[in-house]
């Protein structure tokens, strides 16, 4: 009976690993240098292996992102993490956008956005990244950041407002 428990545990972890390794890797790649990505991914899943029973079934990806973020925070200073996030946007040139599910971006839109991102805090960038790139709901953002869902909603709202404000002088009225 005990052996079967272990088999089930291993199987559950294997499924989790196979399903979420790509998204965790994508998340980590926006926060650390390429040479550090795999060690963070490994550390994240080692934590998941150790705490498998604590992972909420309905927000596994968010839980893994939270663990990955913690591992990154232990090794990369906030300022450096912010730089990586902005670089990740800057590296995404319009010419690379072969398909545009969220709308294609004109070159003239990128420069002011990059300039605005430079003025956001690391926390604001993290929140925007989770919502804009990983399409997370506030409840999932809350799991990643280990805050309440209400607090997550407030942070998302404030970060979006701050970004809009920073871009107002450049772009004028925002179309909703």
């Amino acid at each position, binding site marked *: *009976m*005990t*052996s079967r*428990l*272990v088999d089930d*545990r*291993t199987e559950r*972890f*294997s499924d989790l*690993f*196979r399903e979420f*390794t*790509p*998204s965790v*890797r*994508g*998340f980590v*790649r*926006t926060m650390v240098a390429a040479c550090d990505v*795999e060690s963070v991914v*490994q550390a994240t*899943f*080692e*934590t998941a*292996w*150790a*705490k*498998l*029973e*604590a992972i909420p079934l309905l927000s596994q990806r968010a839980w893994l992102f939270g663990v990955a973020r913690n591992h990154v925070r232990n090794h990369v200073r906030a300022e450096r993490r912010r730089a990586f996030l902005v670089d*990740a*946007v800057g*590296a*995404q040139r319009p010419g*690379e*956008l072969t398909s*545009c599910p*969220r*709308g*294609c*971006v004109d070159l003239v*839109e*990128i420069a002011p*956005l990059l300039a*605005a*991102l430079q003025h956001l805090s690391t926390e604001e960038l993290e929140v925007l990244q989770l919502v*804009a*790139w*990983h399409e997370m709901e506030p409840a999932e953002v809350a799991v990643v950041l280990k805050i309440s869902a209400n607090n997550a909603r407030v942070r998302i709202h404030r970060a*979006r407002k701050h*970004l*809009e404000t*920073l*871009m107002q002088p450049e*772009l*004028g*009225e*925002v*179309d*909703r």
Partner: protein
Amino acid sequence: MRVRDPFEILAALNPVPRLSETSPQDDELLATIIAKAPSTTGKRRRHLWVAGGGAIAVVGLAAFAVFHQDSASSPLQLTCYTAAQQPPPEQFGIPMEGDPVKACKQLWRNGTIADAEPPTLTACVNDGGIVAVVPGDQKVCARLGFANWIGALTDDEVQMMAFADELAATFSEKCIIEPDATAAAQAVIDKYQLAGWTIVQQGGYTPQRACALAGAVPEQQLVVIASRRGAP
């Protein structure tokens, strides 16, 4: 001029899809993680594992996990329950090194389980044959369907613990490459004058994982050697 919401521009510039990919090494990484104890702490080779639910014992490699429902005890393992429940909400596994209650008390005090003085703790033998230290008095073992743990370790058990520890330390303190691994393990076996032991090489060596690690399965008189991250 009417322009898009900057958040939408940010979303459209999403770099994550091209960064989210599988790696040819993923299968190996999965095997490595499963083969390792869930976490490690302490100075030398002091394995701490954490689990919720069923009794799970890990010494250092998955191959070393030994389960004996019928066995009276697994002398190398000790688990500290965080609550008097079976299964507990969380449990912390450490090697058996002397007084199990004292060892678990340390986890309650040092912040691993809590930052406070521990409650009364009692050593039981759980249904996995592992010594489990549970919050509660002497009656708690029976309440959970466990036996009370009695007695100190035998000389053989003490020797086996020392062997397992030295074996792991030999392989973790320096990079032993694959061609030398069997001889290194045999040297430790010989030092402890153990007869009838078998050494198994699991392989998996790559340039990034050129070093070996080893662990003992006393119940099967087995030493398992696998690759670990590192280079000579």
